C-alpha cells in the first residue's frame, strides 16, 4: 500500500513533467515549414494524392523500411521463440468454436482479404496503405484461425512471401539510388498522372510489397501464438 502511494507520487511527478511539456502548447494554426513543403510540393515531387503516404513511403521512406524491419523481426523472433519443440505432446486441446463464427468466417475471410488488397493498392490515393492493408489481410486470416483452430497453415509460404516482398522493397530502394535521386526515391518509373491508380511512381509497388509483408508477418505472429494455444 505504501509502495502504491509512493508510485502514485512518482506518477504525479510524471504528470507534472508532461503538463510542463505541453505548457507552451497552443494548438497549431498553420502548417509548419516542412509540412507546408510536403503539402505544397508533394503532388509534384512524389505524385501521391495522399500526402501521408507520400511522407510515409518517400520522404520518410527510410523510416518505413525500419518499421517493416521491426515487424519482420518481431515475427522472426516470435516464430523462433514460440517454435513448438516438444513433440511428445502433439495433441493440443482446443475448444470448439461456434457454428456462427465458423460459417460467418467462411463468408468474411475472402472479403476481408480482398478489402485488404484494395486498401494497399490504393494507398497513395485514399486513406490507408500497405500497413493498413496488411493488417486487414492479417485480421482476415486471424479470423480464420479463430474459426478453425485445427486448420494448419505452413510457415513456409508465409516466409517466402515475406522474403520476396522484403527483398523487393530493398531493391526498389536501391533502384532509387541507381536511377533517381537517392535511396527509396519513388521517381524510378515516372510519376504518372496525378490522382490515378498508376501514379506516384514506385509508391504502389512499394505499398504492395509492404502490404504483403505486413500481412504475412502479422499472420506469422498470430500463427505462432496460435500454435502455442492449449486450452486444456
Amino acid at each position, binding site marked *: 500500500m505504501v509502495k502504491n502511494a509512493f508510485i502514485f507520487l512518482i*506518477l504525479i511527478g*510524471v504528470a507534472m513533467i*508532461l503538463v510542463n511539456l505541453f505548457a507552451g502548447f497552443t*494548438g*497549431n494554426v498553420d502548417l509548419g515549414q516542412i*509540412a507546408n513543403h510536403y*503539402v505544397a510540393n508533394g503532388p509534384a515531387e512524389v505524385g501521391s494524392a495522399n*500526402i501521408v503516404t507520400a511522407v*510515409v513511403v518517400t520522404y520518410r521512406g527510410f523510416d518505413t523500411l525500419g518499421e517493416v524491419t521491426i515487424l519482420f523481426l518481431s515475427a522472426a*523472433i516470435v516464430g523462433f521463440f514460440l517454435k513448438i519443440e516438444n513433440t511428445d505432446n502433439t495433441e493440443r486441446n482446443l475448444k470448439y468454436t461456434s457454428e456462427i463464427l465458423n460459417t460467418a468466417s467462411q463468408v468474411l475471410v475472402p472479403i476481408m482479404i480482398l478489402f485488404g488488397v484494395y486498401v494497399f493498392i490504393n494507398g497513395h490515393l485514399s486513406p490507408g496503405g500497405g500497413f493498413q492493408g496488411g493488417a486487414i489481410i492479417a485480421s482476415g486470416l486471424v479470423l480464420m484461425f479463430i474459426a478453425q483452430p485445427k486448420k494448419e497453415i505452413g510457415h513456409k509460404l508465409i516466409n517466402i512471401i515475406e522474403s520476396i516482398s522484403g527483398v523487393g522493397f530493398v531493391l526498389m530502394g536501391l533502384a532509387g539510388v541507381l536511377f533517381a535521386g537517392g535511396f527509396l526515391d519513388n521517381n524510378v518509373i515516372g510519376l504518372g498522372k496525378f490522382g490515378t491508380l498508376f501514379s506516384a511512381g514506385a509508391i504502389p509497388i512499394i505499398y504492395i510489397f509492404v502490404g504483403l509483408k505486413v500481412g504475412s508477418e502479422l499472420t506469422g505472429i498470430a500463427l505462432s501464438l496460435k500454435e502455442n494455444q492449449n486450452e486444456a
Partner: protein
Amino acid sequence: MMEKLNIQNIGLTVGILVILVGLWGLLTQKNLIKIVIGFALFDTGTHILMVSIGYIKYRTAPILDEAVDIRNAAKLVVDPIPQALVLTAIVIGLGITALMLSYVLKMYQNKKSLEINNYKDLKW
C-alpha cells in the same frame, strides 16, 4: 475556458491520462498480462498525443482528392507528418507488444505462473 476546450487540448489531456493509467498499470499490477496491457496503454497514450499535436482546427485529412483544392492545400489540411510518424510508432508498438506477449507466454509455459514476483531469479 472554452477556448482551451478544443480538440487538441482534449486529445492531449486524454493522451496524458492514458499514459498515466498505463504507467500505473505497468508499475502496480502483478500479473504479467496486465503489465503488458499497461504498456500497451502507455503506448496508445503516446499515439494520442502525437495525433493531437498534428491536428489543426477546422481542417481535413491531408489527402488531395476532390474535397481539397490542390493549389490551396496548405491552408486546408492538417499536418501530415505526425500522422506518418504515428503510423510508424503504432507498428513499432505492435511489434514490441507482440514480443512481450510471446515472452509472457513462454514464461508462463516454463513456470506456470503469471506473477511477476516469481521471476526474480537474477538480482543484485
